């Protein structure tokens, strides 16, 4: 197996942080979103709540459909504004929300992830640019936020 393709973020008092503190809610996020040169003062559409009861199983159809919508029109709508996006995982089973990070907040009102948990706009220096995902709609490993990670490299067998 590859190393876990996610890292942790914490949400408290309406702010995202890479350092945990008592009372803050912890989320798994696609590690690639934080592993590089951060885009300063980016706009973050955070569709997650601090309420620990705000969670949905990943396999629920509404969670799957939002990711299909992301491929179908959300990512194309954002175009060059998109910096990165990731779902926020709570554990091996539960979706806790999503972040879409962009150079402008002008499209955030259309964010399909806000159908699951309401969105709010933050500014952040934490996130870096990641190529938008071409698939899949599922997590690759239990608890790993979408669209993170890849399976171990495997070459074609010798002819």
């Amino acid at each position, binding site marked *: 197996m590859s190393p876990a393709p996610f890292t942790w973020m914490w949400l408290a008092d309406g702010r995202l942080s890479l350092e945990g503190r008592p009372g803050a809610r912890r989320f798994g996020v696609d590690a690639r979103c934080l592993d590089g040169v951060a885009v300063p003062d980016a706009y973050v559409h955070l569709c997650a709540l601090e309420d620990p009861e705000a969670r949905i199983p990943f396999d629920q159809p509404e969670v799957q459909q939002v990711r299909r919508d992301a491929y179908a029109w959300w990512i*194309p709508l954002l175009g060059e504004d998109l910096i990165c996006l990731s779902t926020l995982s709570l554990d091996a089973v539960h979706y806790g929300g999503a972040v879409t990070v962009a150079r402008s907040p002008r499209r955030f009102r259309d964010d399909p992830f806000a159908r699951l948990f309401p969105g709010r706009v933050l500014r952040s220096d934490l996130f870096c640019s990641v190529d938008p995902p071409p*698939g899949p709609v599922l997590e690759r490993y239990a608890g790993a936020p979408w669209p993170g990670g*890849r399976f171990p*490299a*495997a070459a074609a067998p010798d002819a």
Partner: protein
Amino acid sequence: MTTETDQSSEEEALAERARARQALEPGERFPDLDLPDHTGRARVLSELSGGDPVVLVFSRGWWCPKEQTYLRRLVEVQSEFEVAYARIVVVSVDPSEVQSAFRAGLGARFTFLSDSERRWLPRLGLLEASDTEHHPYRPIAFTLYPDLTVHRRYAGDWYWGRATPEELRADMREITRNVRPDWEPE
């Protein structure tokens, strides 16, 4: 008048095309295409693969009734690809904004790559020479391993030569079985 330099560069171009053609055969590594996607963002084929098998479809373009019909068939199987860790990528000479509209009309969620500048078309040797209006790609498809090794090639100049959904499923099964060591967990 042909100079020695002209002749030399022509020979180099011919040699490059011959190498490209050879790379399109089963067992050979497909070139790592670098093209803008349907949003205009620069993409690389190996990155789009992301370690998963790929169906790479060269398509004439949005205007062609055969392409409209065939791509709808791909749309029918896209949900399976999305949960099976496999990718569909379509390449055409349509500009990105045209691909974006066409893709939305089809209801496709997979990636389109635009070679409107025809950078890769001559290098791959896939020009449909009979279409002097659009100068498009021939409708050729490949199933690829995650490292872009060609598994199978489908010549779709005649519509019935195109890969059916069942053939694509069979290819994806074969590739996945070969590259996933936990295909049948102990």
